[in-house]
């Protein structure tokens, strides 16, 4: 089922929940809505579900305008962060409820519920009540309930936020696998960018109710179109330095009081064409501690992350860079270090409009 949102807007009185969001979701595609808490992800999802009525704009499933269609006639399945199971019904009752409402014959109900429950690995829990299940099991029941009616569209609202880290990893893989296997068009809301990056075909980044970008994970990471996206996608976040571009002997240099590094000619040229001051972005993993490095700094804070140490390196009073370093180097706070910047993936943005100078 193809889904199209056109200039979708939702206001609660004076509070703007979602403003002018337009995007197209292809049939069978897995799309993530990514954004900080309170940015309007849930609101958008609930409009797609038919719970909220849009203040303005159009929602289409296929070619059909859905704005006036009741939730029960949209044939969607939804999984909530709170699971939203019916506490007074058994697991069977919960999963069978959509079928019961569709007046599916009892025998078929039993067969279909059993099939879905087996698929979700909860086939032996059917006569328990939600209160007797663990969080992970409850989430599986919720997923089963959303799947059992063979929906055209699957909606997920932060379904994994209440699970522990390990279980989240398992469920992440399972949901992704299921979605690909069943080929159901899915929208997955999350504030966790790792979740979005790993699971989605395309990610819609939302901020303050507005759509910031709608791209594949790779494009968002390697070719961010705005400063916001560059800073939002990726963990630890990208470093930004105000620089000027100098050209000498056919080479391009990004220069600030704290550093002077050579940048690739194509990117340098695009930035130089803009002229004046630009914002340079470089990811922490593209910076290494190296005795041959050209940038001098002093370690301000060390945050051990396990596999890496995250260093906060002070270049001068105005410039700090996040650097991922090998813990074996055993650098401590206060140590002077030399940094080497791998500028192959360096980004440039207009300081005023915050738009990328490299990608449009």
């Amino acid at each position, binding site marked *: 089922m193809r889904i199209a949102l056109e200039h979708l807007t939702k206001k609660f009185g004076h509070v703007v929940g979602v403003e002018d969001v337009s995007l197209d979701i292809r049939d069978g595609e897995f799309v993530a809505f990514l954004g900080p808490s309170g940015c309007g992800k849930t609101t958008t999802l609930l409009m797609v579900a038919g719970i909220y009525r849009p203040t303005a704009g159009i929602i289409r499933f296929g070619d059909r305008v859905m704005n006036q269609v*009741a*939730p029960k006639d949209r044939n969607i399945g939804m999984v*909530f*962060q*709170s*699971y939203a199971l019916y506490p*007074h019904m058994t697991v069977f009752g919960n999963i069978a409820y959509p079928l019961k409402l569709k007046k599916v014959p009892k025998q078929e109900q039993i067969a279909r519920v059993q099939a879905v429950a087996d698929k979700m690995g909860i086939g032996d829990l059917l006569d328990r009540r939600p209160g007797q299940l663990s969080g992970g099991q409850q989430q599986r029941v919720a997923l089963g309930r959303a799947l059992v009616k063979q929906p055209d569209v699957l909606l997920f609202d932060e379904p994994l936020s209440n699970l522990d880290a390990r279980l989240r990893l398992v469920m992440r893989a399972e949901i992704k696998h299921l979605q690909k296997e069943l080929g159901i068009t899915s929208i997955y809301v999350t504030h966790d960018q790792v979740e979005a990056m790993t699971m989605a075909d395309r990610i819609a980044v939302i901020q303050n109710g507005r759509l910031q970008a709608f791209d594949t994970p790779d494009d968002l990471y390697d070719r961010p179109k705005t400063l916001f996206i560059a800073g939002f996608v990726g963990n630890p976040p990208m470093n930004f330095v105000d620089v000027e571009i100098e050209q000498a002997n056919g080479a391009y240099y990004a220069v600030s009081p704290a550093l002077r590094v050579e940048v690739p000619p194509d990117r340098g040229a695009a930035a130089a064409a803009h002229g004046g001051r630009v914002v340079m972005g470089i990811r922490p993993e593209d910076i290494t501690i190296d005795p041959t490095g050209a940038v001098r700094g002093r370690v301000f804070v060390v945050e051990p992350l396990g596999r890496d140490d995250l260093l906060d390196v002070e270049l001068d009073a105005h410039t700090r860079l996040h650097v991922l370093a090998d813990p074996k180097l055993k650098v401590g706070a206060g140590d002077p270090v030399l940094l080497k910047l791998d500028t192959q993936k360096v980004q440039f943005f207009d300081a005023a409009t915050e738009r990328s100078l490299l990608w449009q």
Partner: protein
Amino acid sequence: MATATPQHEPYMGSPADDLAFERISTGELVFQAVYSALVTVMLLEIGVIVFRVLEPLVHHAPALFGSGATIDETFTRTIGNALMTLAPFLAYAVAGHKMKPLASVNRARALGAALAAAAIVFVLVTMGQYVFRIGPFAERPSLEMTLRQTDAGILVEEVVSGGTADRAGIRPGDRITAIRRVEVTLAELNTAVRQSKVGDVIRLRVERGDEEEQFPVEVAATMEIRPAALVAGLVIALLFAAVAVFWPGGWTPYALLIAIMLPLAVGYLWLIIATFSFRTEGLLPVNAQGEVGGLTLRNWEFLWREATGSNPSIWRVTLNTLVIATAMMAIVLLVSSMAGYALSRMNFPGRRTFLSLTLILHGFPAVTLLIAIFFVLRNIGNIPVLGDYFGFNTRGGIALVMVAFELPLGVWLMKGFFDGIPWDIERSALIDGASRWRTFYEILLPQIRPGLLALGIFAFISGWGAYLIPQTYSIGTKTATLAVYINQLTSDTAPVNWNEIAAVGLFQMLPVFLLFIFAQEYLLNIYAGGTKGSS
């Protein structure tokens, strides 16, 4: 074996406590005793205040409680007395309890200290009781003479000189035969004296030689010191202190619960005994002669009494009450749950105003609206058809008014319960394919079942005990409820049989009692609903 292995003392309790109490100084002991005595005096003071507050209640009980809930004065007085008598024992227990840590080190010493402390407290308490004229020094109504029962009447053996009997002119050797013209035994005379107030005048018919004369004797307040009571008090004090020293801590909650529940339990016991008795003396049933006995079914006669002109049959009254209570429960549940849902889940103009208005209405005393509602009911009565069922002097009308008074509470309660259900569950049901209506009764209502049960029971009970509204808006006995029936028992011109009233009261209470026994699980579970994992 030359190496010295460190020898450890066997561990005995918490060392810090032990050291602190190893040697208990006389100063400490005195301090504890004085402290306990202060606590006692405070408790006594509270007891006195409680008693003073209860006393007028006792005398005006019939007026205050109208019909159903009349309390015999002896009962309240018994409770008041019990409070004051028990208070010192708390102090003895405290005195003993203070020595508990010492007991794990040295039992004998702890016991001795506790007993000493209790004895000091006892002396202080006794002094206090003397000052306040309570306990063993309480002043009792008395005629200030010594009497003995003989065949020829009650013989006056001694008269306290200057006492009230002396002043009235009664001399030793006189024989008392009657109060006014009613012949009495010594037991009856004593009861009469005990039940009268200081200053009342008892007119004694006295035979002196061959003459017969009436002496009006004013009842005086006399302090009779009973040494036996004092000794018993001391023994109990020591016993309490001793028990407190070795009291297992785990029993305390039960002991407290029992102590708190005891007066209540005694109240119910008393009610039940009273209904099967001719008369009661404290908890003892007594017959006309004041002797123990006199059990009777007389008070339960109302169960099979035929209806007479002004007295309806109890069964008809019970049916009325049942109809009104059930109707109330059904209507209140239906309207409250739907209104509560709308107020909790929907946004409509006037929602907040409506909410605050209902709250105000809930605080409105029903009595102030009686006259206005009378006019409303009379006007409803003028509507054709409908008026016959919901007008003035109909069961429907009464139920309607009572439902109206119950609804504000119900609506607010239900709104609160709906507020507690996460939105997501409702959304989930809508997406699963349910209509809003179906979501309401298939998904939401089951989740607030404890609330529905509680509200239903509240509504039923308030209908079952209804008095003011049925009494006001009905003429004659057509729509009388049980409470109204009880009231009629008191407003007769004949002397009131309080024990019969107790019996009807017990009869009225039984269904409510059963209801609570079966529903208490739900009532207690009210706050345990909701969904795990919902945020």
